[in-house]
């Protein structure tokens, strides 16, 4: 709330600065407007930028460093009985202090309440001083920029260079996101691999991440062999592709070669609806309708089907990725030039012979690319498998049994309360790293195939 008021005040100052700059420029120019180098509004923008940028930067820096600064200050001045706690308990206690101070949770002890009061007063003092600094900077920037306005000031050029710096900075966000993903995955994975050897993770065939709470419990160590997860992922993605590739490819051929324009204009968007439906809906559909149906069907045929069979999850995932195969394939098939088709017709080939022997070979690189993209989508898909696939890590190739996947385990390991020093939670990051690597590689290969083998017809 306080922050909201501060931001609103700064915004008001900024728009005030714009008006001040504009009026000042008009006043400096006097009756002869042409003596100004830049339009009055650029002078206004420049004053507004001088007023706003430093102040907002201070507020942003405070927002970023407030937690760590408060942590250091509060930990340093804890009541005696809290200060001598072990590191882990100290972290818990600090968390409680923060919750008491910020969200008004009840305090469990007097010293917690005291620390919370300290926390709250520190936070308030810091906020007030930051607010004072920010407003002072804004006013000072406004005044300084206003004083500098003269007819020859190249205000437009200055505003434009600030804007282009912003444009360049915005375009680096993508790079920082990638760096952030890689660093967070790699760091946590390294911590994981200090506890569990890489070879066990990559080649072990037993996955049971439950860590014992007591030392003497059965299976106290937990085992982190990820092979069953990779196998399960491949099984479900394989089933999905077995559904999506024939359906998607045939649909794409029919839509681009046979369908009347009217049919195409109705059905193509409908097909793409399949990709627009949230995956959690597919997950619900798989768990509620498809899985019981397959189980009952299996029971009638005398087969024993797990109620969370890989087949159900794979089938529904296959439906979901049909549009990924079909719309990309549709594009590449349509891109095959008509002269090729007409050549084949001229030699007496029927339409289907032309498609099978001329069009598809010409479009093959694009089709393979679309299949690989669909495969990477299937491997990274999460909600369907979380809701419809099992949790037990079975190493099996039988689609009627329950298997678990990499994404399912990531979600299961990280949902709920977690401590960040147990291999159980860190394993999720190692799995995430593997997932990131696999999907990136698949996409890279797909792009390479498309670019390298693409036929150029003109």
């Amino acid at each position, binding site marked *: 709330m306080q922050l909201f008021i501060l931001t609103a005040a700064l915004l008001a100052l900024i728009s005030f600065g714009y008006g001040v700059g504009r009026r000042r420029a008009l006043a400096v120019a006097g009756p002869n407007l042409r003596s100004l180098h830049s339009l009055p509004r650029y002078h206004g923008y420049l004053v507004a930028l001088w007023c706003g940028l430093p102040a907002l930067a201070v507020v942003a820096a405070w927002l970023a460093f407030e937690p760590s600064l408060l942590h250091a200050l509060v930990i340093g001045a804890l009541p005696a009985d809290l200060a001598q706690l072990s590191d882990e308990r100290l972290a818990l206690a600090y968390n409680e202090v923060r919750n008491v101070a910020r969200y008004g949770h009840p305090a469990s002890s007097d010293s917690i309440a005291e620390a919370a009061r300290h926390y709250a007063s520190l936070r308030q003092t810091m906020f007030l001083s930051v607010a004072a600094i920010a407003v002072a900077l804004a006013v000072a920037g406004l005044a300084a920029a206003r004083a500098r306005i003269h007819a020859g000031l190249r205000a437009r050029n200055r505003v434009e260079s600030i804007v282009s710096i912003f444009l360049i900075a915005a375009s680096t966000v993508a790079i920082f996101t990638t760096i952030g993903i890689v660093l967070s995955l790699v760091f946590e994975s390294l911590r994981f691999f200090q506890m569990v050897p890489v070879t066990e993770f990559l080649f072990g065939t037993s996955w049971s991440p439950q860590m014992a709470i007591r030392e003497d419990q059965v299976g106290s160590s937990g085992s982190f062999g990820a092979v069953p997860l990779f196998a399960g992922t491949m099984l479900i993605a394989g089933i999905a592709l077995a559904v999506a590739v024939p359906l998607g490819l045939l649909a794409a051929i029919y839509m681009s070669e046979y369908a009347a324009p009217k049919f195409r204009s109705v059905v193509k968007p409908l097909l793409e609806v399949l990709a627009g439906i949230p995956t959690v809906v597919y997950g619900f559909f798989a768990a*509620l309708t498809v899985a019981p149906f397959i189980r009952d069907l299996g029971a009638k045929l005398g087969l024993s089907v797990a109620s969370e069979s890989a087949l159900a999850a794979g089938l529904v995932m296959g439906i979901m990725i049909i549009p990924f195969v079909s719309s990309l394939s549709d594009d590449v098939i349509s891109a095959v030039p008509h002269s090729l088709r007409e050549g084949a017709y001229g030699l007496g080939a029927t339409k289907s012979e032309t*498609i099978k022997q001329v069009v598809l070979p010409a479009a093959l690189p694009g089709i393979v690319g679309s299949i690989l993209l669909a495969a990477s989508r299937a491997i990274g898909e999460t*909600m369907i498998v979380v809701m419809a696939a099992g949790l037990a890590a079975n190493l099996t190739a039988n689609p009627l049994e329950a298997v678990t996947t990499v994404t399912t385990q990531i979600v299961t390991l990280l949902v709920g309360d977690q401590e960040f020093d147990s291999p159980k939670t860190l394993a999720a990051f190692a799995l995430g790293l593997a997932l990131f690597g696999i999907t990136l590689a698949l996409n890279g290969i797909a792009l390479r195939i498309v670019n390298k083998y693409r036929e150029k017809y003109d």
Partner: protein
Amino acid sequence: MTESTQLIRSSDTRTAAQIAASHLKRRHAAERRFKAIGLSAVVVAMTFLGLLLFTILGNGLSAFTQTYVKLDVTLSPELLGIGEQRTAEALATADYGGVIKDAMYKRFPAAQSRAEKREVAGLISSGADMALRKALAANPELIGTTQTFWLVADDTVDMAIKGYTSRQTGQEGNRLSDKQLGWLAELEADGGVTRRFNSILFSSGDSREPELAGLWGSVVGSVFSLLITLAVSFPLGVATAIYLEEFAPKNKWTDLIEVNINNLAAVPSVVFGLLGLAVFLNFLGMPRSAPLVGGLVLALICLPTIIIAGRAALKAVPPSIREAAAGLGASKLQVVTDHVLPLAMPGILTGTILGMAHALGETAPLLMIGMVAFIVDIPASPLDPSAVLPVQVYLWADSPERAFVERTSAAIIVLLIFLAAMNLGAILLRKKFERRW
């Protein structure tokens, strides 16, 4: 010798034309088969879509009504436990549940034993007292009188009335006991049972009781998240698109940015959730389960979509516009902000809406940053813990009660309506402002 005569075996006495004609039949049959297979692939895909929507609608539509039970309630101050007090505080803490129970015992005097009394009381939802509290808060004069109230029925009653669970007495596994079914039939015969529009679903937060669980908390959470997503990803995405399309020199650095954006578009969303957990929650110490963090993660997810759509829209503006503006003395930035950007805006907005629709349906990354907590309160700001619509779907889908199947489907219907509205908006925008140069 030509090739066609070579093909004729010596024993075959037909001419080449006859053989070609006999092949032709087969080839035309193959042609028809191929076409039919292609059509059937389309039909199968459409059938799946229809089946999906049909299942959801079939399961979910009934959740938009809710069973209510008519009951004459005597609002005696003794039973309410407030004595002579009439203050707002006393009224807020009064024992409305006790009053309802008492009214139910009076309605069904045959229930004498403790077990029977518990079963009688079990017909009414444990949250039905809200209606009484509201009525008395609005009009304290009602105390001491007997009033007729329509009270929310328990979810087991609701399911039986809607026909999802059996109302046959004497069956194993019934959620309602035989006596309860008898009382229910008695109530229904008196006209004391009705189904009304389920306003609870659209006005309250989550609850463990299906009949009291609502979507409003998650709708508000979704709106907060999407606002944050829009505020972050739209300016950044448009700025990036402008830079790459209009200003960037062709060099390694630009290539690197482009490769990065394409890769980010392909990264599984759950990995973005891991990023959010490691960076936003653990490193920057932002609050768990908050729409603020959810919105930031979703912003990173839909940034590539907006950038790619934005670049396509900017590219579609013909160079002649830029040249004309530059010829009149506009600076490079003025060309973009005053001429190119306004012309490209419909395309950029279309892409942004589609990106937002995608973000609205995204679930997995939000699970990572703790948006799966059970939250009853309606969030008041983006910093409060909250659920979002798809996560609410996931949470309800996990609940064992039969009534939650119906409510999950209803939540999906609401989610799909939002998505359809956004997509329709995008299509209309494109249709209205589409320009061919």
